Structure formats: structure tokens, C-alpha cells
């Protein structure tokens, strides 16, 4: 087990560097420049330009730039071109909000996906199952920003609930508990909309796995020895639903981190997606490098966690 984790960490480190290389060269080779002024602006003296280039290593060759960027990232000295604050500090402000939103969305997807998938699998082939499968594809086909707007129209017009940001402003909270509850309330709506597609995908996945398990020999054996149908289903077939649940943790994360940008924009939620989007538009190379690095690390960590969980719950899986 330990050797497995160690080997996976080694591979992950390698992958992360490949990823950072790809992202760095993709960003820097693309047209456009990070200068806060127009490149041909005559009012900026060559000395100022030179000093700016030197400060952000833009005078070096690309491989050197990559090396300096990575070195500064690890020593925490990497500064944003936009406001010259340390990149890690800028990300640190946003990361907790994004993590809370995504963890909430993943939990919602897994829990509701499980319940829905099992419900549908029990009714496979009947009309409620057909309706539920159409409904699940409807959730996948919903453009997230569209449904968010429709809900916003409804909420703002018919019930004045606070939906923007991470907390209610202008209110002094008497204690930590009510402040925490207020924060959670601000996650519920964007997080649930973010999770809609995940719920549907997860439920399809779990329904398929449970149905496949129902065709296995051990289910026939369980039935043959006279076990009641509930016991066959809940004790023997349902255990198979754990596998898609774990895969879900690993596979939902990348989609969520990307997809949360749109939801963060609509709900004025200060997360990483928004930060990354602004960094792209401003050609803020250091911030982008750091964001890509951290996002990839999170995703790899999620995958590793899923693999370890696999081995923990399923003794058939051997980790060598």
C-alpha cells in the first residue's frame, strides 16, 4: 500500500511538471502581451519597459522563464503582474471559497446520484425509469448559466433572498455559528446548480452498475437460496454502487473546477475560476502558471484518493 502511494506520488509529480510545461508554453507562446500598457505606447520610456521586463523575467529566454517561474512559485516569491502581490496570497484568498463550493457540489452529486440511481435501478424497464432517464439527460443538457438565471429571476422577483457573494453584508452576526450558517446558505444555491449535471451523470452510472450486478451469478445464487428480494438488492447488489461513487470523486473534480467559473461569475462568488479567468484576459502569466499547477495538483490528489479508496473498500483490487 505504502509503495503504491509512493509510486503514484512519483508519477503524479512527473505529470504535474508535464502539465506545468504544457500550460506555461501554451500561455506564453500565444499572441498578446502582459504589459499593462500598449506595446507601442510612445509615452512609456524604454527604461521603464526594461525595468518591467526584468522584474518579471520577461527579458529571459522561455526555458529560463519557465525555470524562474517554477522556482519562485515554490519559494513563494512569484508575484502577479497585475498588482505585484504574491501569487500564492492571491490564490490563498480564493481557494477556500472554491474548495467549499466544490466539496459541497461533489457531496450533493454523490448523495443524490446514489439515491436516484438506486431508485431507478429498482424500477428498470418500467415507465418511472423511462421518465427518470429522460429527466437525468435533461439535467445534463441544461446550460448551467441559463438555469442559474431562471432561478435568479424567480428568486429575486418572488422572494427576496440574499444570493450573491459568500456572506450577507451589513449584518453583524452575534456569534460564529450564525455567521457559518450564513456562509453555508450562500453556497447552497450556486453549489446545487453546479452539481445538477453531476447528480444526473452519477445516477446514470450507479443505475448501470447496479443493473449489471443484478445479472451476476452471485445474485442468482442469493435468489436461489431463497433470500428475500430486498435483501438480495440491498445487501448484494447495492455494494457495487460504491465503485461508481468513488470514481465520481475523481472524475467530478476537473469538470467542477472548470465549470464553477460560470456559476462564480453569476453569483459574484469570489473563487479560483474567476481569478483564473481574469488572469487569462490580463495575460497574468505568473498567476496562470500557479493556478494551473494548483488545479492539476488538486485533481491528481482527488484521483489518488479515489484509487486508495478503491483498494480499501474492494479487496479484489490489489495495489502493487
Amino acid at each position, binding site marked *: 500500500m505504502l509503495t503504491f502511494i509512493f509510486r503514484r506520488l512519483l508519477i503524479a509529480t512527473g505529470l504535474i511538471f508535464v502539465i506545468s510545461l504544457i500550460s506555461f508554453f501554451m500561455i506564453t507562446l500565444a499572441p498578446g502581451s502582459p504589459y499593462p500598457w500598449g506595446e507601442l505606447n510612445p509615452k512609456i520610456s524604454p527604461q521603464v519597459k526594461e525595468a518591467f521586463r526584468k522584474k518579471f523575467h520577461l527579458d529571459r529566454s522561455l526555458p529560463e522563464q519557465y525555470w524562474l517561474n517554477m522556482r519562485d512559485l515554490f519559494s513563494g516569491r512569484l508575484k502577479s503582474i497585475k498588482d505585484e502581490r504574491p501569487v500564492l496570497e492571491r490564490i490563498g484568498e480564493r481557494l477556500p471559497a472554491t474548495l467549499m463550493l466544490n466539496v459541497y457540489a461533489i457531496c450533493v452529486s454523490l448523495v443524490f446520484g446514489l439515491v436516484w440511481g438506486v431508485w431507478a435501478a429498482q424500477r428498470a424497464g418500467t415507465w418511472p425509469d*423511462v421518465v427518470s432517464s429522460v429527466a437525468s*439527460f435533461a439535467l445534463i443538457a441544461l*446550460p*448551467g448559466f*441559463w438555469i442559474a438565471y*431562471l432561478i435568479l*429571476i424567480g428568486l429575486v422577483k418572488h422572494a427576496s433572498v440574499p444570493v450573491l457573494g459568500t456572506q450577507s453584508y451589513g449584518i453583524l452576526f452575534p456569534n460564529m455559528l450564525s455567521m457559518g450558517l450564513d456562509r453555508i446558505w450562500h453556497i447552497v444555491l450556486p453549489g446545487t446548480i453546479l452539481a445538477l449535471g453531476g447528480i444526473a451523470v452519477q445516477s446514470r452510472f450507479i443505475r448501470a452498475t447496479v443493473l449489471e450486478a443484478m445479472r451476476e451469478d452471485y445474485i442468482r445464487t442469493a435468489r436461489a437460496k431463497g433470500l428475500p428480494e430486498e435483501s438480495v438488492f440491498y445487501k448484494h447488489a447495492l455494494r457495487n454502487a460504491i465503485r461508481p461513487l468513488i470514481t465520481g470523486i475523481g472524475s467530478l473534480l476537473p*469538470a467542477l473546477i472548470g465549470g464553477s467559473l460560470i456559476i462564480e461569475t453569476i453569483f459574484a462568488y469570489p473563487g479560483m475560476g474567476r481569478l483564473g479567468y481574469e488572469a487569462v484576459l490580463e495575460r497574468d502569466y505568473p498567476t496562470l502558471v500557479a493556478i494551473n499547477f494548483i488545479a492539476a495538483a488538486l485533481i491528481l490528489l482527488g484521483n489518488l484518493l479515489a484509487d486508495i479508496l478503491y483498494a480499501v473498500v474492494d479487496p479484489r483490487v490489489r495495489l502493487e
Partner: protein
Amino acid sequence: MNTPTQDQPAVADSPVRRVLRDFFRKPIALISVFVIAVFCLTALITGLCALGGIYFPYDPNATDLANKLRPPSMAHWLGTDNLGRDVLTRMLNGSYVSLTVGFVAMTVSLLIGVVVGAVSGYFGGWIDNVLMRIVDALLCFPSFFLILTAVALLGPNIWIIIVVIGLLSWTGTSRLVRAEFLTLRETEYVRAARALGQRTPKIIFRHILPNAFAPIFVTAVVGIPEAILIEAGLSFINLGVQPPQATWGNIITDGKSYLLDAWWLIVFPGMAIFLAALAFYLAGDALREAADTRSERK
């Protein structure tokens, strides 16, 4: 299950026919194919007319400030936007852009995915290792963010958007094709073809690929709505196909400033995206079920 029954002679029961017969037996499949056909026909007709400079019912870019933000009426069935442009006309003109993005981006990603998956699965060894590690690396990027970065850096032009979506969404297809090839390359007919001394490309494309057709076709059908939804998402952050060319996504984006006053700017184009995507997803699912030989058919 594959053996022909009494009333169906073996000749008529080719795999493709069997899949199609099972497919068109489902009401949901019929409805979704109908919806897709309506969308495609509309897009084709308005697209051809737009090429010839003919627009109906109005000119999509004709502004009419006296009639701006009018709710749906007899003159403007789906209302007008903030510049008095007819929403129905703009949606019709957006339909061929959105569907083109869907079809072409899917084709690009399918081509790459099939070639990478086929090479990886057929040859195995270090080629497989290298290709699959690249896929792993690509999967570690938040995909929408990667597409957004590429489009923002290269400039939001319709062809760039299509190519970027296609170039960055083939990973799933390649894994699927690889898995198919891993099992199919060990079959007797492939070994026979190899023993007969046929060249590798011919074995891959003539013998193995047709047998992996069903799952590939299903991913193709599902890839279309995905590309449409991604383009809509890009439009939302102003990185989609640029105005004045209307797309379903950018009509919503233009309309979001009038969220509380002009619901028709949000509801109708969103409905079009939703219905088109849903029809493709349902058709893809029905096709998957029809092609799935393992599932029990009662």
C-alpha cells in the same frame, strides 16, 4: 441472441440493421430524431438563405430602437432585444452557427480520438504508454478552463473555437476506442488477417474499426451537444462566437443585462440550446442501448 430467429432470415439481420431496428422501435428515439431533424433542417435552410443574403422573417441585424425590448407579440413572435432586433430571426440565424460548432468540433475530436485510441490499443507497448500518459495529463486540466484559456489567447473566432473544442475533447473517445481495440485485436479474424499478411493500416481500418463502430458512433452523437454547450458557456463569458453574428449563447449573454425586464431574451434561446442538447443526448442513449448486445431484451 445474435442467432437469427425463424421469422428473420439471416441475410436481413446484419448488425447495423439490427441496431437500427431496435433503435427506431423506441418512442423516445423517434421523438429525439424528429427534434434533431427539425433543428438541422431549420439550420440548413436559414444557413443557405443567409449565404444568399436572404433573411426571414426580419433582418437579424436590423435595429429598430422604437420597438426595443418588446415582449412576444404577433409581429415579433419571440419579442425583440435591447436594439429592437427580432429574437426569432436571431435564433434562426444562430441555429446554424451552434449546430456547425457541434458537428465540426465533434468531427475533429472524433478523428483525433479514433486515431490515437486505435494506434494505442493496436500497438500497445511504449506507444500506448506514451499516448495514454498524454491523455492522463490532459485530463488533469479542468477542461472548460483549458478551452477558455486557448480561445482567449488565440482570439474568439468561430473556427478557432471549433478547432480548440475539438482538439481538447478527444480524450474520452481515445480511451474508449483503445479499450475496444484491446479486445478486438485478439479476435480470430484479426489474427487471420495478420496471418494472411495484410498491412497494418488495412487491419486497423478495414477489419477492427467497423466492429468498433457502434460505441464510436454513440460518442459522436453525444459529442455534438457537448460542443454546443461548451460554445454556449464560452459565449456567456464573451469568448464565444462574436456579435453581430448571433448564436444561441450570445443572445442570452446580450440579454442578461435585462434579466428582470425581458425574460424572453433568456428563456427562448436557452430553451433552444436545452432542447437540441437533450435530443442529441437521448438519441445517443437510445442508440447505445440498441447497440448494447449484453443488455437483456425481453
